[in-house]
């Protein structure tokens, strides 16, 4: 062979493009971020719903419960009684129906009771003591949150048992007593001193102040509103909450054959449902049209199924007593739209007069706190204890929340207020309380942020309901909890708006391989700035709006 040296051709390729910096091309970079879901945004207890629903989906049930009880110690009860703003706000609503969050909450709450899960003991025990007056939702919530911080709590309640409206208002068929008992006991077991059967008044404040560093008043609203058409002494015109209490105490007030319930809220529906179960012909007269009645639609639907006649958009003008029966002279009304929110001004519709006959009328038109004994201790405004944004009353060291201080008469609102009030009380006591609020920095996830391709249509699965004819035969619970399969299916329906579930889409759809999984990253992934060209595919393909964009100036 010739000795000529072979020359290597000049253009064989040996290097890799990964030394190039294509990151210089972009003007914005995608970032992983936790964004608030709409359910979170409206949740009265600030519950991190996407997180615990995801834990259910991953079958980490106890973790789900732990997430739930961060903000709400009684999920079995709230899972049955919440007015569910979360489901109204759910991004899935306009897609194929909201996720049945409330049913899932019940599922986890019930599981916790069945499994006997207990709250962990506080990590510290402090000397400070707080008196909580009222063992209803707000008081229970506040007592629980204070105890978790190690603060000593005495919980006072006028009733023989804790639970407040949950125990003495909401009917058994919606919330079994045993659930309330189990969940309140779990709070008590956290080391809460309980004093029942004692009604504290303003006169007790000095004594309490001697023993306690702060007082929290949350004894609710028990003074029923009346309508002027009905005499206060007429035994045929009962008060709704008194009636419900009598039913809860297994000594129902006497009712005539035909009952007319006046009111359009949850209490009215509970009254009607209870009357039906006591075998009474029941009619409901509501001032508002059905669409705007304060009671949730499913509660209205329940009583109608059970045989109640709903007459909405109408009011009683006068009452006539005819041979022992009450003749209610009614008229249809429209609500004046030109009034401030919170004010209701009916406008009669001429020529729509009609008459209802009743043996018993039950008034369920709201109730006010009884503050006669407290007026000289704390400032009262509009019939309620006046509080500032930190739940402080006018009296230093006395805080208040729940129905006693709010017109938002929802049990879950009371839970949330109780929690927030506890934080304020703790701060007042010199504790450091850090509240994380995901909503501060980032925009709430809207339906447009959801990539629906990743979510096949799946009809919502609500709790099965017992047939109406069966359920009016007694006070057994009318909604059956979700089965395991139903619960998982519901959990899988959750978009997990704004909460990364590590699906890897951001990484998979990056044409530049610029997003990698990183165990050290706060949100599981790292964007490689050297390569990211800023196309936004990751953002678009994130199924759940858990990414955002950061503009970059070059």
């Amino acid at each position: 062979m010739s000795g000529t040296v072979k020359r290597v051709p000049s253009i064989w390729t040996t290097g890799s493009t990964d030394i190039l910096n294509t990151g210089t091309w972009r003007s914005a970079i995608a970032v992983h971020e936790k964004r608030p879901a709409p359910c979170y945004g409206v949740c009265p207890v600030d519950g991190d719903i996407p997180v615990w629903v995801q834990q259910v989906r991953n079958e980490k049930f106890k973790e789900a419960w732990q997430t739930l009880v961060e903000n709400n110690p009684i999920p079995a009860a709230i899972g049955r009684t919440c007015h569910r703003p979360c489901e109204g706000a759910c991004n899935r609503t306009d897609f194929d129906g909201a996720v049945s969050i409330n049913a899932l909450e019940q599922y986890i709450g019930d599981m916790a009771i069945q499994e006997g899960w207990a709250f962990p003991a506080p990590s510290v025990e402090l000397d400070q003591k707080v008196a909580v007056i009222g063992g209803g939702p707000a008081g229970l919530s506040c007592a629980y949150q204070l105890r978790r911080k190690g603060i000593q709590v005495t919980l006072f309640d006028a009733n023989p048992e804790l639970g407040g409206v949950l125990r003495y208002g909401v009917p058994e068929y919606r919330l079994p007593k045993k659930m309330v008992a189990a969940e309140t006991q779990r709070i008590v077991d956290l080391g809460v001193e309980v004093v029942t059967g004692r009604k504290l008044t303003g006169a007790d404040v000095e004594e309490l102040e001697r023993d306690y560093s702060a007082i929290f008043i949350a004894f609710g609203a028990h003074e029923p509103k009346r309508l002027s058409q009905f005499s206060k002494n007429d035994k045929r015109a009962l008060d709704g909450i008194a009636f419900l209490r009598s039913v809860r105490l297994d000594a129902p007030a006497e009712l005539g054959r035909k009952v007319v319930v006046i009111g359009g809220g949850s209490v009215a529906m509970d009254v009607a449902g209870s009357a039906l179960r006591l075998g009474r012909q029941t009619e409901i007269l509501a001032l508002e049209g059905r669409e705007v009645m304060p009671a949730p639609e499913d509660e209205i639907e329940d009583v109608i199924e059970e045989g109640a006649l709903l007459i909405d958009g109408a009011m009683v003008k006068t009452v006539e007593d005819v041979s022992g029966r009450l003749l209610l002279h009614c008229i249809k009304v429209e609500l004046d739209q030109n009034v401030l929110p919170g004010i209701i001004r009916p406008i009669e519709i001429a020529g729509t007069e009609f008459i209802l006959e009743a043996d018993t009328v039950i008034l369920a038109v709201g109730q006010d706190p009884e503050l006669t004994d407290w007026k000289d201790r704390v400032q009262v405004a509009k019939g309620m204890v006046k509080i500032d944004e930190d739940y402080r009353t006018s009296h230093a060291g006395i805080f208040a929340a729940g129905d006693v201080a709010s017109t938002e008469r929802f049990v879950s609102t009371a839970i949330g207020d109780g929690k927030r009030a506890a934080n304020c009380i703790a701060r007042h006591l010199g504790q450091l309380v850090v509240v994380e609020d995901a909503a501060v920095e980032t925009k709430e996830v809207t339906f447009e942020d959801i990539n629906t391709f990743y979510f096949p249509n799946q009809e919502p699965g609500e709790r099965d309901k017992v047939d109406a004819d069966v359920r009016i035969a007694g006070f057994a619970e009318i909604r059956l909890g979700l089965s395991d399969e139903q619960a998982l299916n519901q959990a899988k329906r959750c978009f997990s708006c704004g909460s990364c579930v590590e699906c890897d889409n951001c990484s998979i759809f990056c044409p530049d391989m610029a997003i990698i999984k990183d165990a050290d990253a706060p949100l599981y992934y790292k964007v490689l700035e050297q390569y990211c060209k800023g196309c936004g595919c990751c953002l678009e393909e994130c199924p759940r709006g858990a990414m955002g964009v950061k503009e970059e100036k070059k």
Partner: protein
Amino acid sequence: MKADSNRLLLSGNHAVSHAVKLVKPNVMPVYPITPQTPILELITEFHAAGEMTGEIMTMESEHSAMAAAITASLTGVRVFTATASQGLLLMHEMLHYAAGARAPIVMFNVNRTLGSPWGFWPDQTDSLAQRDTGWIQYYCENGQESHDTTLQAFRVAEQILLPTMVIHEAFYVSHSMEAVEIATQDQVDAYLPEFNPPHRLDPQIGESWGNTVSQIMFQNHRRDMGDAMERVLDVAKKADQELEELVGRGYGIHEQYRCEGAEFIIVTMGSMTGTARDAVDELRSEGLPVGLLKIKLFRPFPVADVREILSGIPKLMVLDRNYAPGTGGILYQELKAALYGLEGAPEIHGYLAGVGGTNISPANIKEMVHSAMGEKPVAHSVWKG
């Protein structure tokens, strides 16, 4: 024929096929075209009979044949293909590509007229039109030379890393039967080393070929190709000498026939050379100082050699069996360019003789010599024959 003899009566094309068999290419993409077809037919027969291994690829076009040849070659194996005329033109793009890829493919081309109109005749325009593609080109005058040159072509191509085209003309060579001495397998095995290039398409190596380059990279690459072409002259001479040592037959990269004391030299390429040899013999016997220069290696053109050989010769006559409309005979142009500025450069008569396969006899050539001797040459090719 003796049983132990390697002498066979073969057409020029089959002489090529025998050479290819000895060379044992790994991949042979082929496509039929007259008058090349017998080359591929005998190869596929050898293959079917188990006398050859390797991959025969029956392509759907010459273009694809060359495309497959290039990649097979870059994968680091020996590759052969053959074509003619229109087929070569269809490959044109890939000829450049092969050279750029430094793929040492050996291809045999049988010269045939280009359409339109259709014809099947010997004419070198097809391959001469590929003179700028970066291929080494050898022109052969008979089957024996084609056989031996094919062996040399693999040696040169693989050493230089440039594709190489070996060429003979339609019918006059491709289909004419003559006795051809076939090299033995031992001779060829001793002559041709294994082809095992260090750079190749191989996942174990991971190198790629053909990425987009910058202007300066491209220029450097072309310059490298030029350097390689320059080295061909020595490498080809050596390859010829070493084959001659083994088989006893050598050709040089050009041949001077009876040029001693010549004052008039005929320059030819391909089959015309044999005819011109007869004419020279007759003219010498007439006492005329006429010699013959055969150009065998046309690319790279042996400029230095030609200038040395032709320095001081008063007159040349170039015979072109090809025609480039607008410039005339291509060998004539190349020769003029090669001799430009040479002190004592000869006058050159460019004759277009045998274009389209018209028959040129020794008598025709003698007649041309006689007339050229008495004339001043014009500055362009002149039609003869």
